[in-house]
């Protein structure tokens, strides 16, 4: 069955909109390309936004903790003033808290053989504690006790070719940073984001040697684990009561993730740019589809006037314009989705960003495309009023 025959069966009338679109191939293809382009634009922006959200979540998800205590002014893992170590002991005294461990955070430049620099988000941890559940970190945690020992993120973006397989094979890799020589004794898998290329784990002692200006008594965060069977909400409430709010903020890990995601997507330029891109994409789509549909209506004013003279009601013409809008939405969206999937793969390979299509996003953008085309169609139908059958004779 041809597309026209299928549509005819579906609509119970001649698929006039489809036939009209198909008649003018060049315009049809231009319109489809426009819809596809808008879809690609929106899908890519949402993909980047999704990657941003995923990359924010990633380090938190690797933490072996239920609650994170940070400076009151903290927006992301990477900022905020140090937290006095005293808060750790106060937290430990709260009912329901089983363990507490400090987490230091700093950034290290990893110079590449070609002179390029990779930024490594570096965590300083107590090797005796278990602040991360990441298998690679857990396995080599003991090694960190040695001075200047480090574990490196094997998903770090743009690392020297073949380096990670060699380290995995047992080779010891050394590199200079902050005037010290770090010894990488093992790898773990985490993955960089928009700000950082990857992660590095060192002991708290090594961290303080790398960042001598940092006071030993003041980590960036304190990670807490709940006692087995402890009520998370009640413990959080007790912690908030026990610790001064002017000094520190207490969040369950999922809460902290949501806060930082909201901050990154609505307060930081990257997030705002992506949101803006979605709006621009949708606008491009509306304008292109409106142009095509209104030109198409204008080109058929005499025919529409003739159909009015035959007795067709206004809703028939609305039906034709919406039929065109939906044909454009569906036939334009599908190739757009295919191209976007290819681009996702390309971006993931080239940048290592956690960019992936979700069924929900694909569906939402499809519905958005339908809505966009319907809106353009609705605006284009205003031109129908010009079809006056009295002008025909």
């Amino acid at each position, binding site marked *: 069955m041809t597309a026209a025959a299928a549509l005819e069966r579906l609509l119970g009338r001649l698929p006039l909109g489809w036939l009209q679109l198909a008649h003018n191939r060049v315009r049809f293809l231009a319109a489809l390309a426009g819809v596809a382009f808008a879809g690609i634009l929106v899908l890519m922006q949402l993909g980047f936004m999704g990657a941003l959200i995923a990359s924010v979540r990633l380090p938190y998800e690797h933490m072996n903790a239920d609650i994170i205590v940070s400076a009151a002014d903290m927006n992301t893992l990477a900022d905020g003033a140090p937290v006095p170590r005293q808060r750790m002991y106060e937290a430990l005294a709260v009912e329901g808290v089983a363990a507490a461990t400090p987490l230091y955070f700093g950034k290290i430049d990893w110079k590449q053989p070609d002179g390029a620099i990779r930024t490594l988000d570096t965590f300083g941890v107590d090797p005796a504690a278990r602040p991360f559940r990441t298998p690679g970190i857990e396995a080599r945690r003991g090694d960190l006790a040695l001075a200047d020992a480090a574990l490196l993120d094997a998903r770090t973006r743009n690392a020297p070719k073949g380096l990670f397989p060699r380290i995995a094979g047992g080779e010891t890799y050394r590199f200079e940073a902050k005037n010290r020589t770090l010894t990488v004794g093992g790898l773990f898998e985490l993955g960089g984001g928009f700000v950082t290329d990857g992660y590095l784990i060192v002991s708290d002692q090594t961290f303080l040697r790398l960042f001598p200006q940092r006071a030993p008594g003041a980590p960036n965060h304190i990670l807490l684990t709940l006692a087995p069977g402890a009520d998370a909400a009640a413990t959080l409430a007790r912690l908030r009561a026990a610790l001064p709010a002017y000094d520190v903020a207490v969040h369950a890990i999922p809460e902290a993730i949501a806060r930082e995601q909201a901050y990154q997507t609505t307060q930081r330029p990257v997030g705002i740019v992506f949101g803006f891109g979605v709006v621009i994409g949708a606008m491009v789509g509306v304008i292109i589809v409106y142009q095509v549909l209104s030109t198409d209506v204008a080109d058929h004013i005499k*025919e529409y006037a003739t159909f009015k*003279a035959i007795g067709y009601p206004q809703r028939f013409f609305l039906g034709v314009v919406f039929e065109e809008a939906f044909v454009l939405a569906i036939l334009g969206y599908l190739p757009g989705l295919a191209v976007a999937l290819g681009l996702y793969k390309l971006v993931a390979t080239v940048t290592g960003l956690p960019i992936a299509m979700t069924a929900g996003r694909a569906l939402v953008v499809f519905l958005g495309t339908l809505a966009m085309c319907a809106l353009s169609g609705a605006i284009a139908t205003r031109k129908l009023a010009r079809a006056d059958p*009295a002008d025909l004779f």
Partner: protein
Amino acid sequence: MSGPAPAPPIRALGLSHWFGEGEARKQALHDLDFEIARGALTVLMGASGSGKTTLLTLLGGLRAVQAGSARVLGLELAGVGEPGLRALRRRVGFIFQAHNLHESLTAMQNVRMGLEVHGRQALANWREGCAHLLGLLGLSDRLDYLPANLSGGQKQRVAIARALIGNPEIVFADEPTAALDRDSALNVVDLLKRLGRARGTTTLMVTHDSKIVDRADRVLVMEDGRIVEDSGTQALAWSRPIAPRRADVR
């Protein structure tokens, strides 16, 4: 023996029409009184600007009546709204000087548009109906052609088929044969006359073609918005029982 004479399909009383506003206001029709009998082929003649087209658009429900009365197919058009006019349009057929065929529809599909307006049930056997009518107009070998591949006369005949496929009770035609050669024009007029006899289809046609005027049942001549001459037989050309509407055109 027979009951009261059936109401004529068209009756105008004091029908007037104006165009424009204020200074530019101009009267196009002056107080017209006339009736047109069922099944008759009436030809409307007159110089350009005499009001023929205005009269056709009023009687066909394409324009709102401003003053006077126009009763068409039992419906008083004065004061009737758009839905009423639309209902009337579905019962009549228009043949315009320009064919106005839809460029992306084939001859068959263009004709089908005249049926589809009557709803899904009207589409039963639409292929046979449309092909038969196009055949009567000499287009059997052009059924699936797009307008771009038809000559001017062929396109006009497709437009005529589109006007007739819904079995209209009245056909309004404005210079329908301008694009047709002599034989096709006479063929169309004969078809309209046959429909008049067989089904009581009433035709009101603007034309200056003397061969058609010769075949008319009645000729009205207009001048400056008035009917100045009314010739031809006033008797009903049609006197048989009413055939069911929308039966196939035979």
